[in-house]
């Protein structure tokens, strides 16, 4: 299963993207383990750690098969890595992590983070995350990512040393604040809208699917009762006994088969969930673009007003409203020396302002260019992956139907011997 996952998610990429970490290195999240330790406030806690194994690609082909390098990481470290990437590459659609808590559960699945099934699915999800990052044209060459995979100790400190947290905090504040962009880029607005829709529809699909899975489970399991009753009934019958008894066994098999069926469907649900979270990442890029746009507009606005102030000061006319202007009207104009000083200050500010606008403009253009490239890449990846997911869903349904045909044909044979 894991091999299949690796193939379908990480390495099945167009060849031009092969200049990637993944080409040089095999990465996997091999195991999960429970640990107990003291947390930040010195209290005992239980948590899970995941074993990351890496091995140079050539090593395997050489036939020596050396022991892979490995280190243990917990979920919070993955989160830290991702936050760093988000802040450092705001124009990229950063691959999402598997969900923190189990959502869209149906009754059989536990919502408990310690549940072995949940841990296993999370292990797969974390591996998938690493493979996605390692196959991204820009992210895969990041040094912090590389050391995440290779340096067990001191990695956290290295991350904090980059100072990304400061940027993170300010960006976060800005993102959460409401602001209005005067000239929104239509493409990004559409993308954001698409992100909203994708998130909404996948959530709905996951909810409906979970409920349907619950019901299907019930249908199959009730058939197990046939097995029990047939078996009891066969005890009081002479000629019918054998047929009933063997039919009963097939009913038991039918009831038991639903467990595998639904486990496979969980993988499909996980594939959908990844894109649910990807939708969020996409929206984040759009919002960050809005922010850069906004900052540019603010700088441009500021520059314009400063230029106007200079003009007014130079020509003596007051067009822009300013408190100074009003007070000077009321209390008389300033001295020529004061005016001179003010003009000089404004000139400096305008120079700085123009620099800022140029900077911001370049930033914006750079952002738009990089973001749009990555969005196109993301679109292709999404279309490919989701189509694959739909196909694998169909294959699952076919497998389920084939099992059903087999069981009921067997049961029919037994019944006809009744």
């Amino acid at each position: 299963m894991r091999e299949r996952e690796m193939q379908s998610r990480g390495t099945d990429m167009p060849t031009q993207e092969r200049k990637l970490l993944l080409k040089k290195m095999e990465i996997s999240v091999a195991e999960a383990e429970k640990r107990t330790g003291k947390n930040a406030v010195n209290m005992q806690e239980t948590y899970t750690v995941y074993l990351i194994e890496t091995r140079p690609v050539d090593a395997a082909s050489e036939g020596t098969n050396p022991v892979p390098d490995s280190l243990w990481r917990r979920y919070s470290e993955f989160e830290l890595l991702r936050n760093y990437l988000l802040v450092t590459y705001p124009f990229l659609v950063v691959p999402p992590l598997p969900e923190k808590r189990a959502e869209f559960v149906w009754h059989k699945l536990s919502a408990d983070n310690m549940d072995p099934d949940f841990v296993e699915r999370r292990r797969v999800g974390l591996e998938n995350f690493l493979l996605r990052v390692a196959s991204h044209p820009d992210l895969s060459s990041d040094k912090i990512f590389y050391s995440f995979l290779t340096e067990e100790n001191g990695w956290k400190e290295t991350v904090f040393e980059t100072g990304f947290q400061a940027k993170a905090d300010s960006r976060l504040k800005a993102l959460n604040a409401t602001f209005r962009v005067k000239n929104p880029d239509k493409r990004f607005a559409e993308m954001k809208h698409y992100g909203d829709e994708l998130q909404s529809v996948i959530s709905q699909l996951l909810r409906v699917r979970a409920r349907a899975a619950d019901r299907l489970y019930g249908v199959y399991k009730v058939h197990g009762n046939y097995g029990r009753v047939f078996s009891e009934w066969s005890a009081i019958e002479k000629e019918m006994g054998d047929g009933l008894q063997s039919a009963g066994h097939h009913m038991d098999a039918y009831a038991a088969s639903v467990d595998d069926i639904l486990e496979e469907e969980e993988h499909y649900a996980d594939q959908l969930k990844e894109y649910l979270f990807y939708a969020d990442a996409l929206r984040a890029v759009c919002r960050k673009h809005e922010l850069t746009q906004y900052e540019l507009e603010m700088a441009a606005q500021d520059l314009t007003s400063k230029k106007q102030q200079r003009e007014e000061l130079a020509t003596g006319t007051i067009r822009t409203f300013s408190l100074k202007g009003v007070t000077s009207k009321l209390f008389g104009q300033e001295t020529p020396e004061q005016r001179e000083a003010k003009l000089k200050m404004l000139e400096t500010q305008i120079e700085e302002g123009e620099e800022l606008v140029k900077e911001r403009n370049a930033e914006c253009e750079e952002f738009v260019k990089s973001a749009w490239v990555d969005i196109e890449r993301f679109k292709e990846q999404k279309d490919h992956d989701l189509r694959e997911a739909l196909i694998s869903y169909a294959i699952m349904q076919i497998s389920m139907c084939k099992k059903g045909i087999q069981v009921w044909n067997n049961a029919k044979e037994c019944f006809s011997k009744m």
Partner: protein
Amino acid sequence: MSGSVVDNTVSSGNSSAAIPTDVSGQILDLDEDDDLEVFSKDTTLTDGSSFNASMQTSPASMINQYKFEEDADTKDIFVTVDNPESHVTAIETYITYRVMTKTTRSEFDSSEFEVRRRYQDFLWLKGRLEEAHPTLIVHPLPEKFVVKGMVERFNEDFIETRRRALHRFLNKIAEHPIFSSSEDFKIFLTAASGELTSHKKQGPGFLSRMGDTVKAVAAAVRGVRNRPQEFTEMQEYVEAFSQKIISLDKVTQRIVREQKEYLEELKECGPTYALWSQSEEELAEPLKNVAGCVDRCCKETEEQVKNLSDHLIPVLHEYVLCADTLKAVLRRRDNIQADFEAKTEALATKKANRDTESKVLSLAWASLVGRSPEEVKQQKLKGEIKEMRDDLDKAEDRLEWANNALKSDWTRWQKVMRTDLRSAFVDTAERNVSYYEKCLAVWESFLHSQRTDAEGNGKVDFS
């Protein structure tokens, strides 16, 4: 002749009973009454060749009448129930069904008949057959109406389910070696409505029916003392069978409920995929395709649920009712035996009284007076005893007949039950296979469409 038959049926290993099991020996032992015994017997019993379907005759000849294999070639009567129609009168609204008969039997005036009958008429027929043959097994009728399912009497599905059940009922009667020759059955199939109504009124009076019931209750209260082992085994089987068939009925109904709930959820899946396709470009087509597949699977699931409800559940339900019928038949047989045992005991008591009295008499008065009041009393006792003996003989014959009838019909019933339930389950299995085959085809067509699509675009490698 009756002695040998009685030996087979009545003998049991239970020797602690107050009444000896081989009663025939006791009756014949009483020497003074030998001549009376011979004269009082019903002579038709010794004649095994005369056979009248609606009269009880010698058990031995009865057994020969049972045909266990109903070959298609020997089937000479075909009955169908269809075409339900609603009738509205001032007092009530009711449904009638068309009953068509095709037959080559000579006792029928013609070869084809078509009449209309309502549920009440079927009930009447069933009652008549049960009355005439208390220890034969009459196939159950569908119930009056299903209260817990909250089904209206005039709901289409209900009417169709009832029609099928009525059809099965009549066919079971037609296939039964005894019932199919019943006069009441013939009238049911052939008489015009007015004729049927007047025939119904001619049945044994209500009071006589009451009388039988009272006697039956009295006997039931007394209970049977020496039930033969095979009937006890039958009862145990019926108890167990009843439980199993009730369980199967419940399990099947639960499956239907769960599937309906599954269907409710599944119905929302298709539209969600369709909604999604509206936001997508490349993915729009596969998503719409999946939406269509899910919708088609929904339809198939709906049909499968309906099949279970329409075909398997009614048959299981019928056999739940059958189990009750079997219990009633066994009870009636027990009552007949209890009646016989009671009469046997009463006769023995009476005889013992007479013996005691006659001893007293002969000692005191025999030489003195000649014909004394006590002698008259003796004469009266003799008469009473003769009457009781006649009654007892009839009861004995009734029991013998009842036991043999039940045994033969029991074998027959088991075969029919096996056939019915086997074909019901085989049918269900076939339908399930068909359901999965249809869904399989739906998803395979999706795969096929994606395959040709993708290979055309050079996107996906399916190898």
